[in-house]
């Protein structure tokens, strides 16, 4: 019990201050690069093959890192070596959030979400895999 508590506390302390103040996004998946913490969730939460969906995301710089200049969202099927037939449009909305519109995963199988966060003249890339059935 003490061990678990210690582990949770140490993770919390290890997070840079800026990332700790990240706005919460309920039910979001959390990803990290060297410079950013990104949380995202889809609308609808359960994705369907060949149906458009939205992605809501929050990006926070870790301590001392530049604020993001822009975010891009894409999808890729590594097993088939192709991506989406659509280009997502990402807009900054209130509260440090972004909304990506126009995504569609048109086949069943494994898809990788690809997030690119640009800031300070560099780009960080984060990926997360989902399986569509």
């Amino acid at each position, binding site marked *: 019990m003490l061990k678990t508590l210690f582990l949770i506390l140490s993770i919390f302390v290890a997070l840079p201050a800026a990332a700790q103040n990240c706005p919460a996004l309920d039910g979001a998946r959390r990803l990290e690069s060297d410079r950013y913490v990104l949380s995202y969730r889809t609308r609808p939460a359960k994705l369907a*093959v*060949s149906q*458009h969906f939205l992605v809501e995301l929050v990006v926070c710089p870790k301590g001392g890192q530049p604020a993001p200049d822009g975010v*891009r969202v*894409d999808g*890729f099927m590594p*097993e*088939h*070596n*192709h*991506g*989406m*037939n*659509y*280009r*997502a*449009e990402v807009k900054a909305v209130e509260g440090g959030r972004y909304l990506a*519109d*126009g*995504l*569609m995963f*048109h*086949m*069943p*199988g494994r898809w990788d979400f*690809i997030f*690119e966060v640009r800031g300070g003249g560099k780009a960080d*890339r984060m990926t997360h895999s989902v399986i569509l*059935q």
Partner: protein
Amino acid sequence: MGLVKLPFTIHHSRLFLIVGVTLALLAPWSGAQSPAGFLLDFSEAERRMILQHGPWPPPAATDPSNRVSGNPEAIVLGERLFFEPRLSAAGTVSCATCHVPEKSWTDGRKLAVGLAEADRNTPTLLNVRAQRWFGWDGSNDNLWSQSIRPLLDAREMGSDERRVARLVRDNAELACRFEKVFGARPHATDDETVMVGVGKALAAFQETLVSGRTPFDEFRDALARGDHEAAIRYPLDAQRGLRIFVGRGNCSLCHFGPSFTHGEFHEAGIPVFKKTGGVDWGRYDGIKRLRASRFNLLGPFNDDPARAPGTSTRHVALLPQNFEQFKVPTLRNIALTAPYMHNGHLATLADVVRHYSNIDPTLLHVAHMYFDPLVPDAVPTDTLLKPLRLTSLQISYVVAFLATLTDTEGSAPRKPLAAAPCR
């Protein structure tokens, strides 16, 4: 005839069990015979994929971009217009010239023939309402603009806005029906708006063309409700073909969902040189035409003020891999719509399955080079279409499965919709 005396005793029930198990074990290797009465041991993953292809029919929904979608008066007007040859330049060609009801709304030809021979095969209109993109290249994003396209094509109906509008204005019956549908007589001078009205009525009619339930649907629903007795009525050869379809064949990755298409595009290794010369670039040109069209869902004729159905059009990407891609067609009633592929290149379903089974990956070139700035390391090769090297027997199983996607009413003669004369 006497009984053979066995050197040992087998209880009757045990004998039946042994015979049954032996037959079941032999069944997968039993040649082209297709007795019902057995159910293959579909895995959970196979069952999940099979269930994705239903239920059928899908719930009907109106098209928000077309204010007369689902309107009974519009359906009647649309039917009249669909069979109306005076819409064409020569007065000889109607929509039904290529979309013949008794041929599952196709024409049985390799290439469509209107006023002249066209470059592509006539696709069926059955279940057209369920589509996101229309035409082999998806150059239209809605059914009413797709209905206008052949009116204006020189090799199909060769008409123009003026001719279409004049017919509807000057014909008392059509003008009366037009007024009933749209609440006003056809505009005296605005030919374009009248033609769009014609397209919307044609779309309302075509939305009613939905194929019925098939043996596959009965099987799929039996699996869904765990009804073994009903499931075993599905022919064994079709079950074997279905297993290839959702399994090693990878067919269901594109032919996915209740309509057996994910509604998008793929290259298939079919020659793209046109008889008239030049290359049919398929989806690549389709997207360019879509964007240039005044009649797309982002344009002024979309009746949905929010432009909500226009999401696909707003976001569709024009990519190098779109070259030579064509729409993945529905497989419902596919046995009734030969010949196949965008240019009718393959005569039979067996030819189609054999084509994919023996596909030459070197024929899949530009279309499968994936370009994406976010994926700089993507290898320029296709990993989806691979030669399967199916045996003749396995090909016959897939064909047997495809045959069970046929609606028994698919090619039945139809009666015109009943409607009193309009005055």
